[in-house]
């Protein structure tokens, strides 16, 4: 690990000032489960680390508000996953947290940091001699012709097909979440969907945040779609594994007809992926097994497979269909 200077400010404003003074080589440190891990691999080599764990102002969350749910960026995944109101009213959000990582990691990882979790692509993490445009811009992509069973089918480019590994952001994108961000020029609010960039020609730039912008909180507008929602995650082992495919679905029925539906998919794309085309196939129609399967197919339309991951087009499609049917069961009180 490379040496770095370490500071631990007491307020968000101080943290932003401190990191701005350090310059673009600096990183915020929260739970550390991604950053510190990648620093051990010399993939992340910050010259300065600004530890934000003292910003207790950001560690609360409130799931009881009448207009929105508010999650402080430093709330820990385990605490939020265990919230009984969230489990009852927004099972997709709770399940996305509970099905991620292990209990120990969920105790450590923060909600804001989790949004920025970096890919598990082995060529990105592995370092030299593997080429990786994300780690070292312009060096090439070892995954395109390498072992790419777990890589992205949607949102990739010639430069990068690394998958976005998280679950929480996928579920949040189904609920039109917003993110409050503090920078040197004050606070701004962006849609969660606008936080992420597709790799395109610059896979090393993953988000629309500046290095000195700090995520303060995540806000989710209250919606009647929450109760009939699910986060359905398919993986190589039953627990403590990243998604081969996942789907967040939230549903509102009007009798047997779909009044409104939200679908987002994970483990399949270079960023949290809202599947609006799939939503459109369902709205205003009776919800049958065939309709769910058609929505699944629509969600994966345009998917581009690499050597080892063709099976995940069908897997992803069926994951979405299953999730839709789970949400339907919940809509009818099941």
């Amino acid at each position: 690990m490379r040496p770095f200077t370490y500071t631990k400010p007491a307020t968000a404003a101080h943290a932003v000032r401190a990191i701005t003074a350090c310059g673009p080589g600096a990183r915020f440190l929260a739970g550390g489960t991604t950053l510190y891990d990648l620093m051990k691999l010399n993939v992340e080599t910050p010259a300065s680390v600004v530890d934000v764990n003292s910003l207790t102002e950001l560690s609360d969350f409130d799931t009881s508000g009448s207009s929105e749910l508010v999650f402080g960026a430093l709330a820990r995944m385990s605490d939020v996953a265990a919230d009984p109101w969230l489990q009852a009213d927004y099972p997709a959000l709770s399940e996305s947290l509970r099905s991620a990582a292990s209990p120990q990691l969920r105790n450590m990882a923060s909600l804001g940091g989790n949004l920025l979790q970096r890919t598990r692509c082995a060529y990105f993490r592995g370092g030299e001699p593997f080429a990786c445009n994300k780690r070292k811009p312009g060096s090439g992509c070892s995954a395109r012709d390498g072992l790419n069973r777990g890589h992205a089918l949607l949102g990739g480019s010639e430069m990068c097909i690394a998958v976005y590994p998280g679950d929480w952001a996928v579920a949040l994108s189904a609920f039109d979440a917003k993110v409050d961000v503090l920078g040197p020029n004050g606070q701004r609010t962006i849609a969660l969907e606008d936080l992420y960039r597709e790799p395109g020609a610059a896979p090393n730039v993953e988000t629309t945040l500046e290095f000195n912008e700090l995520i303060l909180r995540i806000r989710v507008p209250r919606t009647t779609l929450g109760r009939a929602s699910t986060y359905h995650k398919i993986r190589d082992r039953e627990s403590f594994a990243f998604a081969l495919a996942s789907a967040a679905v939230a549903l509102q029925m009007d009798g047997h007809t779909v009044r409104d539906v939200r679908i987002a998919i994970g483990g399949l794309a270079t960023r949290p992926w809202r599947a609006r085309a799939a939503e459109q196939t369902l709205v205003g129609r009776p919800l049958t097994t065939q309709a769910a399967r058609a929505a699944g197919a629509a969600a994966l339309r345009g998917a581009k497979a690499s050597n080892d991951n063709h099976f995940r087009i069908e897997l992803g499609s069926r994951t979405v269909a299953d999730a839709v049917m789970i949400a339907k069961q919940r809509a009818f009180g099941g």
Partner: protein
Amino acid sequence: MINSGLSLRAAARLSAAALANYLRSTGWTVRPSRVDGVSIFSKRLPGADEPVHVLLPELPGIEEEHHRIADALRAIQAVEARPIWTIVDQIIGNPGNRIVSGHFKSGEVVAEPSLTDIEAEQKFEAPGEVNTRSRAGGVSIELTVNGTSHKLTLDPRSSLLDVLRELLALTGAKKGCDHGQCGACTVHLDGRGVLSCLTPAVQGDGRQVTTIEGLSPPGGGLHPVQQAFIDRDALQCGYCTPGQIMAAVLCVTEGHATSPEQIREYMSGNICRCGAYAGIVAAIQDAAPKMRSA
């Protein structure tokens, strides 16, 4: 004395002569003991009435044996309560101990490159970076481990796991993957299960750590989960066991030991390559009612 990887790698960077120079310049005295080849290292710490004595193989006078230097480093750091790398930095920072071709020279003695040296070069940084690290200085924290408070000045890079094992000589928590994937380093931080390998030690400032060594009070016998692991043969090689037990205790106290499925889900962050999972689940089922009635 057990030499773990870090002290060996640190030792690989030093010559015995450089270490002896360091000892002389930092208030240690060295005198022969009644046993051939063993010296008594002594130092009076600030505020202490009596010096601390440590028995070690003679230095210098032995060949460049890394494991002996590692023994000395571990003894020094235990007495001085500071991380090995700060000692190494100080020795290297002494102009008498200059870097020569990536190795460290003191007087006429140059450590021969060895496998350990090569590993050290890979695991540590290129030689030029060492000064940067020294200049960056340490971070002072107060860390309570198994009820004992420690004031430590740390390189901010050090993991809680390395500090527990290398600095405080609590080797119960194990380094399996060192990347948060195996659970062998599980400890309790303010009562919650965390991976000490992915916890920068400076984040332990003002907080309470419990390791397997502190699970039951001294002289208090085994914790019910420890006894259940023995009774149920819940291990083979035993390397993952301290982490398994620390996670298992929380599995019960947090209310997840209600069914085999719940136990398996809660314990999914602790990998056992011997495959003792069936025994682990049985042990947790055994221990749960005993812990509730205790």
